[in-house]
């Protein structure tokens, strides 16, 4: 099966391994990711704070390119890119004037209605079809993860149909169950990591992230599982710093969901590049004899 793929800027830079993991995991699942040609930045969470027209226009160009492929679905693994693209698509649908105004400048116009999917939506179809379970090669015994969704995978600035429970999503848990892993229940799965505040308002962001780690530790978790590269970078890169500030002794690896899926498919640390984390992330896997 072919599916359009929008990696976004982060997956070509600080979360490059997430791009690579997506390609490897989806290939094993029989899904061919076709990267959009000449895609542009989605504007992320910044565009809406600078200019509302631009916040729709940036993802609109990508939607036009995606539609021109003739494919019926596009997967976007980054939460910010996914949210911005989905929201823009709905705003364009709602306002024909805005759409005409933006289309005027686009060589590939927004006309159809390609399905914009999060990574979870696509992976869940492979759970339903049984394909994911078939590919499980290795039991991930001893992993006690908490699934961390962050904000914008389930909460949107406008009313869009959300394919999961907003306050207590279960998509990641369902996928992990197919791998034989039972994720722990906890309170902070949709709380905010601070996103860009980790850079521009460090004091506020560290407070938020410390609360998240505290609850995970209290629940007995030994790692986080995420799909958002912003959450991953924040919780990973600053964990040592904010844990020290808040008297938290434990350090928990922040795994991308694709890392755990890849491991259960039999891939190793080097193939998945799990050695590119700030918090030591290979040790736990070795201790549990998972690699």
């Amino acid at each position: 099966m072919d599916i359009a793929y929008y990696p976004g800027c982060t997956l070509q830079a600080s979360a490059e391994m997430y791009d690579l993991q997506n390609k490897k995991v989806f290939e094993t699942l029989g899904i061919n990711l076709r990267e959009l040609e000449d895609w542009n930045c989605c504007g992320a969470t910044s565009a809406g704070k600078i200019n509302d027209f631009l916040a729709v226009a940036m993802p609109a160009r990508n939607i036009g390119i995606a539609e021109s492929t003739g494919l019926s679905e596009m997967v976007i693994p980054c939460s910010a890119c996914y949210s911005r693209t989905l929201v823009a698509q709905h705003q364009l649908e709602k306002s024909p004037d805005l759409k005409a105004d933006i289309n005027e400048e686009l060589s590939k116009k927004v006309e159809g209605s390609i399905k914009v999917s999060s990574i979870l939506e696509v992976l869940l179809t492979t759970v339903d079809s049984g394909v994911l379970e078939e590919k499980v090669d290795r039991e991930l015994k001893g992993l006690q993860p908490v699934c961390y969704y962050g904000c914008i995978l389930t909460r949107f600035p406008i009313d869009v149909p959300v394919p999961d429970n907003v306050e207590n999503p279960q998509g990641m848990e369902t996928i992990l169950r197919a791998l034989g892993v039972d994720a722990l229940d906890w309170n902070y799965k949709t709380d905010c990591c601070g996103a860009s505040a980790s850079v521009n308002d460090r004091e506020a962001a560290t407070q938020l992230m410390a609360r998240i780690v505290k609850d995970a530790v209290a629940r007995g978790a030994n790692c986080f599982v995420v799909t958002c590269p912003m959450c991953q970078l924040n919780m990973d890169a600053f964990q040592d710093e904010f844990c020290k500030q808040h008297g938290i002794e434990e350090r928990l690896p922040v795994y991308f969901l694709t890392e755990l899926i890849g491991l259960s498919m039999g891939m190793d640390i080097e193939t998945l590049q799990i050695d590119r984390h700030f918090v030591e992330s290979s040790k736990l896997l070795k201790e549990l004899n998972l690699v």
Partner: protein
Amino acid sequence: MTATAREYTPEDANALVQEVADRSGQNLTACYQCRRCAAGCPVAEETGFITPDRLVRLILLGDKEKALVNELVWRCVSCYTCGTRCPNEIQTARITETLKKMSEEAHRSPLRSKVAHFHHSFINAALRRGRLNEMEFMGTYELKNTLKDLVSFRFKAAYDELMYQAKFGLTMIKLRRMHYGFLSAKGRGEIKRLAKKGRARG
């Protein structure tokens, strides 16, 4: 100490409510002050007196100055928790995003200059090449902050920040999470034209 009661001018208040409602797409008058937004706001401890419900109230009362310059507008992390839980479907994060733009248009200096620098540096870098280059964007962002520190004689702060970023950058390099070279989109001209159109529309 009691604060002086605010003089309410219906014309001014209505104009402010209308502008914020039109631009943010939120029906502010539907707010009945249940404070469910305040209860769930993750930065409520940081924003002091101003919670999402009180921000809406300030706008309804026509207090433009306070609505533009307060901690919530500049420290809101746009997590959309308030709006998701609001029984009247008011997305306050869209209101804080709108007020950031209005504050800039009114030439008020942002309460938190780093936040404004961040989003401008991000969009400028993304527009320049069509794709965002993390190093280019972070470089211009840090430069703006450093300049602001230097002209305000905050030499220690500038030095500390430089050291912090240098240490962070070295770890990024070690972990191969620093990207070299430039990402770009050939069709960036389309985005640049759209940005121009957007600026003309305000």
